[in-house]
């Protein structure tokens, strides 16, 4: 774990903290509404009380004896006995600074991804990742779980690793780090994940938020570091549908902000091919994560479409928290077609 000197937060960063806090709180409230309150299953649990059964609850928790005596459907509620440290691994390589239609976002055109420019929270995949991380951190902190943050690549003004801690102060530090981080550099997921896995406590919960834009054969095996420590792995795979779908109306020269590789592209020619390749790529990552017992959550960002982006954000947070993996039948491009998140 490393810690840099206490930074002097700028008003812009502090404003972003408040905004992140607001987003996280709103989303968490949405997650806690209705019947979808989170119940994590620990290794040792203790009965708390009864609650009337509502559709959607796990039938395993029905109390059959009460039902036999009173004809009432009630479920048993439990409380965890031990706290599970949670680490959020956030990939903020420079590629995530792109958004809808690659870099054709107003933010990118305005900033040109200049060094020192904070990413737009609504116009970039990095913003989506930051808000998702903030939401998850808020949620778990609210449930009394110690939460930590590992930022891979990205310029976070010195803060790159925050170990899991409980309490509002720890959450505040996470929010400050998320508000100040700038997408930058190359992720090198293999090295980063290996490093994080090696210093993680056993039986932790690790949530990796990344676009995974490195050869899966290179970084997926690094999940072994988590698996070896019996960690609960949840991989949030971010992607921008308009970007993967090459939603360009004319030939463009595309370049990678990370390494400068440039490709001249006629979108019409490559559109069908990239769809096949994207499906193969998703399947490859999903199977790789599953091979180490991880949970795979394919998450579209819908950058630039605020309504769909909000839905995607909430939906992703819910699936990660509930531990719902993306199935093999999910097509990333069908999600774009019907407007629903996978």
């Amino acid at each position, binding site marked *: 774990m490393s810690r840099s000197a206490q930074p002097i937060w700028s008003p812009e960063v502090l404003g972003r903290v408040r905004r992140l806090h607001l987003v996280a709180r709103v989303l968490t409230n949405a997650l806690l509404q209705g019947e979808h309150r989170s119940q994590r299953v620990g290794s040792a649990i203790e009965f708390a009380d009864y609650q009337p059964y509502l559709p959607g609850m796990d039938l395993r928790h029905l109390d059959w004896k009460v039902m036999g005596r009173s004809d009432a459907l009630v479920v048993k509620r439990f409380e965890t006995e031990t706290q599970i440290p949670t680490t959020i691994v956030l990939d903020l390589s420079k590629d995530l600074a792109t958004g809808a239609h690659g870099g054709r976002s107003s933010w990118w055109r305005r900033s040109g991804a200049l060094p020192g420019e904070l990413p737009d929270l609504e116009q970039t995949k990095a913003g989506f990742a930051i808000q998702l991380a903030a939401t998850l951190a808020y949620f778990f902190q609210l449930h009394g779980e110690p939460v930590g943050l590992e930022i891979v690549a990205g310029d976070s003004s010195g803060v790159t690793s925050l170990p899991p801690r409980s309490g509002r102060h720890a959450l505040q530090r996470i929010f400050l780090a998320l508000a100040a981080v700038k997408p930058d550099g190359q992720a090198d997921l293999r090295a980063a994940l290996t490093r994080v896995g090696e210093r993680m406590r056993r039986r932790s919960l690790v949530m990796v938020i990344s*676009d995974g834009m490195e050869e899966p054969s290179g970084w997926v095996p690094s999940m072994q570091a988590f698996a070896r420590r019996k960690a609960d792995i949840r991989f949030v795979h971010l992607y921008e549908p308009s970007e993967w779908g090459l939603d360009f109306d004319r030939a463009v020269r*595309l370049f*990678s902000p*990370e390494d400068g590789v440039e*490709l001249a592209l006629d979108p019409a020619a490559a559109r069908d091919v*990239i769809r096949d390749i994207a499906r193969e790529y998703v399947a490859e990552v999903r199977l790789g994560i599953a091979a180490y017992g991880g949970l795979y959550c394919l998450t579209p960002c819908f950058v630039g479409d605020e309504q769909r982006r909000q839905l995607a954000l909430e939906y992703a947070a819910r699936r990660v928290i509930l531990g719902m993996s993306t199935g093999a039948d999910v097509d990333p491009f069908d999600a774009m077609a019907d407007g629903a998140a996978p």
Partner: protein
Amino acid sequence: MSLSLVAPLALGLLALVALPIIAHIARQKPKERVPFGAMLLLERVQKRLRRRRRIKDPLLLLLRLLMVALVALAISGLQWSYQGGTPQFGGTGRVIILIDQSMSMSLADGGRTLLEVAKSEADQVLEAIPDGTLVGAIVFGDEAELLSEGLVRDSSRIRSRIAALGPTLGKSNLRSGLLEARRMLEGEPGEIYLFSDEAGPTMVPEASEELRRIVSGGSAVIPKQIRANPPRNIAVADASFGTGVEGGTIDVRVSNYGPEPLEVPCEVTFPDGQSIPFFADLPPEGEIVERLTVPRAADGGVGKAHCEDVDLAADNERFFHLPRVGASSVLVVDGDPGDTPIRSEVYFLERALAPWGDRRGAVRPEVVGAAGLLSLNPERHQVVFLANVSDPRPYTPAITEFVRQGGALVVSMGTNVDPERYNTSMSHLLPASIRRVEDLAARGEMGVPLEVPGTDIELFEPFTRSGRSAFQEVRSRRLAMLQPYQDSAEVSTLLRYSGGAPALVQRTVGQGTVLLWTSSVDYDWSSLPTQAVFMPLVQRVVGYLGADSGGSAGTFDGVVGRSVAIPLPDLTVQPSVTGPDGNAVPTRLEGSTLVFTPNRPGAYSVSVEALPTIAWVAANLDASESDVRTYDDFARSEAEIKPDLFTRVVDLSPYLWAGALLLMFGIVLLGLPVLSSRSEEEAA
């Protein structure tokens, strides 16, 4: 073959080929540069597309370049010009059918003769001619013959006349055919369809000038070649007599005009019916000369050489003149036969003429009495010896006619000779009148010797110096003294006795010769029969008098279809000509020349009724017509005169447009967008 442009300036549109290149380059460098966050996927896309792009990209560029080039060429009006095999001509409304009827058109190919094929094709052309077209037809062999009176609109009569055409033995006189065609066109342009095998080395060149006139007049000759595949023919090209061993030689030249070697049976038949068969082993497109030996004895006349050939039978035989060869018939009239052969007047003469018997010698003596003169035959006998004939008067007319026609008469004296009878009946034949018989020596004495003959006398040329000296050994005790005479162009003294008395005197009478030996040919008056020079002298006299040559008939060569002129001897009646089939041939007199035209090959005899043949004519076909190979292509000759007639022009624009459309279609199919990559470093 060449390419040309109707609008060459439009070729500048070829510069448009730069457009696809520019587009190709420009397409690889889109202006807009956009950051992209899923480059891993694009790299995988690039790998997948790279293999397809390697083939498609250059192909697409090539197709675009080709399409632009084709469009530019199409607008430029690209045309393809090439030389056709026949003239590109038509639409004149005047058509003349010209059919070759020469002998070579009788060549058989596939069961039909070339003439039959030509007739069939000509009929098809006439049938296909549009209504209203003026049509004429001409056939030519040795000469051209009109099948229509000028140009007519109704071709039915022409077609029927063409259908009735038969083979001829003439030569291809294409020049006359073209001349008649030109006359028929009367200066207007027209199309002349020529149905010919174009065979022979002279046919096309001889007609080139007339062809030039036709083409210059705006007309065209459209050759319809009628040829056997391949042309084959075997012909007896020549046969001729030559001197040599035995009775001489016959050289037979046989030509093979086909592409394959052949061996064919041949035969030479002499006038007296004797024949010599042989096989001719012929190389492809070559000839052989077969030399045959003539028998020691053969009658003179016209002989025939023949070879078997099924392709063209007309030229399978060749006729040639054969002089009478071998033994010459000498009629020896014995005026004093005697009771035993040895006492006969001509005992020594007969043996001197045929020392080895009459079957092997060069001279065949026929010994007869005086009445035998009635069997005198100028065709069979060359020399007549009158030996001691007492009264020649009954036979004088026959002897006279015999001598006038070229026969030779040798008169020798003897005890039976009555000078008065000779002088009165044969004064027009004898070199000089006989004055009296005079004894020069008594019996038992040696007599008067002969002088050595002069070297300038033709009769004694074969004798050597010692041979001539031997004449001095000959002595005569008695001889006939002659009336004084002068040597002249007609009369010459060939041999004298010492003292100057004539021994042998010659006189030329008409075409014949008379020799007078003033002594006898037996032992009574002279020692000549017992001298060494006797037999050589007798043999030489026979040879000197032409007994080893043929009869007196003249020999002439003729060609079928062409006039033969024969200068006539001084006759009061017109001779007739009998053809090979035994029938009389039409003749006409042109001054003192008899003219006729042989219509078939063979021996033609010219004679006066009841008299021997005056002349023989060996008529043959023109040998050049047997050469059925093609030497000069008529179309080529015409193309040299006017190449424009044969120039075919094909407008390529429609094809270029079609090609451009196809290419455009291909471009649409292949013109899928292409992904290309370049790193920033490479771009820099």
